[in-house]
């Protein structure tokens, strides 16, 4: 096909589509919109619909949305009973609170560990940086499950840590590390640390070293420079990194299941139990939707704060 016919074809197509109100701009936006619609909004609506149903022994295991009454009229069956149940049962409340607590604590520790690492990489000479970044990303190349299992080898009663400490005579009795909240924190912080480091690094590497010199020149010690210049300017990186750790951590299932004890109550585990053990899909859906709002609310709030800052 010659360039000319191609050109004519394109123009013709564009004109026809323009007549029905579709422009190039619309098309470009349409692709991601469709993606979100298909893979986010539709499942969300399905989940929302199930959360309003009643559990049944059937396939699928919940009541249909509508029913023909005996007189042939259409009856819509939807109730907020599942949500009322969630709020009334202490198990769910505790699971939510405990998930938030574990996610917050893990995020704080990931930040405390990740910030110095990101800072160090960003301040390293250029050729060394890519090597250090590679080392941060490298663990992703092995299976996540495998890495969590490896931690079991470290933390268990006869594990590496206990054997070493007993061998060195630091402790007499092995420590109980496995199946504790501590093990869950270690697992989550270890797994999600790169998600904290990478956005922090991306932010810190852009920091103009002249600003640090200027602060020093004006009489600020390195410590004061950090708290008055570096830290406030890296806030967007801190927010991005914290979100990337907090969000997966709050719904984490595998790590508490493998490393946590029977007392480690997290919403991901409750979700699993409801879906697969109790086969109570409606309650499980309600649990998922409430969690979604718990996660989305702080993000929306942060977004609005950042937008206001940007306008300022």
């Amino acid at each position, binding site marked *: 096909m010659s360039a000319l016919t191609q050109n004519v074809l394109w123009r013709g197509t564009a004109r026809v589509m323009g007549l029905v109100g579709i422009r190039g701009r619309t098309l470009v936006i349409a692709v991601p919109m469709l993606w979100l619609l298909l893979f986010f909004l539709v499942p969300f609506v399905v989940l929302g619909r199930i959360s309003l149903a009643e559990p049944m022994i059937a396939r699928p295991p919940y009541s249909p949305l509508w029913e023909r009454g005996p007189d042939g009229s259409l009856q819509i069956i939807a109730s907020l009973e599942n949500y009322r149940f969630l709020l009334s049962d202490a198990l769910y409340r505790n699971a939510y609170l405990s998930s938030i607590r574990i996610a917050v604590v893990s995020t704080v520790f990931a930040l405390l560990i990740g910030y110095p690492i990101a800072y160090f990489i960003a301040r390293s000479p250029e050729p060394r940086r890519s090597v250090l970044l590679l080392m941060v990303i490298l663990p992703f190349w092995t299976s996540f499950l495998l890495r969590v299992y490896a931690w079991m080898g470290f933390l268990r009663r006869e594990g590496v840590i206990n054997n070493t400490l007993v061998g060195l005579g630091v402790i007499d009795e092995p420590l109980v590390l496995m199946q504790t909240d501590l093990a869950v924190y270690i697992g989550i912080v270890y797994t999600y640390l790169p998600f904290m480091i990478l956005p922090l690094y991306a932010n810190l590497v852009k920091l*103009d070293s*002249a*600003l640090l*010199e*200027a602060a020093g*020149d*004006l*009489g*600020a010690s390195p410590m004061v420079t950090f708290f008055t210049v570096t830290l406030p*300017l890296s806030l967007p990186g801190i927010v991005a990194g914290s979100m990337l750790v907090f969000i997966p951590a709050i719904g984490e299932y595998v790590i508490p299941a493998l490393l946590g004890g029977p007392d480690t109550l997290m919403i991901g585990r409750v979700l699993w139990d409801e879906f697969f053990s109790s086969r109570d899909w409606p309650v499980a859906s309600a649990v998922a939707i409430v969690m979604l709002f718990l996660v989305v609310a702080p993000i929306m709030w942060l977004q609005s704060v950042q937008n206001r800052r940007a306008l300022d």
Partner: protein
Amino acid sequence: MSDSALAADTKPWRSAAARPFISIRNITKRFDDVTAVDDVSLDIYQGELFCLLGGSGCGKSTLLRMMAGFETPTAGQILIDGQDMAGVPADKRPTNMMFQSYALFPHMSVEKNVAYGLLREGKSRAEAYGRVAEMLKLVKLEAQARRKPHQLSGGQRQRVALARALVKQPKLLLLDEPLGALDKKLREETQFELIRIQETLGVTFIVVTHDQDEAMTLATRIGVMNEGVIRQIGEPREIYESPNSRYVADFIGSVNLFEGQVADTAAPIAVETGDLGVMQAQGSDGSVTAGQTVWLALRPERIALSRAEPAAKPGLNVLPGVVEDVAYMGHMSHFRVRLANGRMLRVTMSNRLHDEDPITWDEAVFASWAASAMRVLVE
């Protein structure tokens, strides 16, 4: 007050008894195997506006950064007001720096930027912000006090950077290309503004620049740097009129250079230039020896062009030539005159008088200049 006393007061570097305020002694800085600053010694006096002038990579910024404490000298000593700066970190030095990029804190308003240094000194907020207001008045930025740096124009940012560096009343202010980011017109206005502020506050300024016009306008003295070495230190007039080397003569302004051998060492010194014959040049007795290879520097504006051959006079150099090019600039005209041996002579003549019949292309002319207009350079 006698004339010499006045000179010693405003130009302390002319007096041997004056005590320098900043002493740079045999400073060397090496980065790996690159020597950025090579055994530089320099004395700067209280209240001076000293310009370090040189092209990029000549070591001028490195020298400035060593004074500020951002770089550690490989060897040598820096004394500020008699105090050795070795081991004194940047935040403890009595210097402040104005950065080329200004390095304003983007998350702070103008007044917070300026107050930053005062608050680090432990000044109360009331006192600090009082001083900030005074300083913003001096740089005419009172109205922008609450703005963030990104809401300011380039010229305003430059003034914030200056105010922030000056508000701490440093003994020494270091300015790295202070006008480099401004456009030409603003730069010219700002030059005089900078001098006004420097004179108002009496702070010693060291300015790094690659712009010779800027250095000539601002400086009490200029240090010309090249490849880590200071080639010449002097007042702007001295640097221009009496360069000590071909490098300096060529770097500052425009110059005609002739190579030759000394024929007569008695003033005016006679130099045999081969094709162009013997030229007479200024030079003190005993500065050169007979037969020595020297270079003659001649500024274009010191040459006169005439259609008629000027009457021969002792100490007057005359060469015939043909006008190859004329560039009329309004206040002056630039000529390129081809000499008998084919080389071009650059001549600048001011258009001070209205000339009905100016010298133009392809005219045969005589270029003449006094021996006193020509400098003998030995390197």
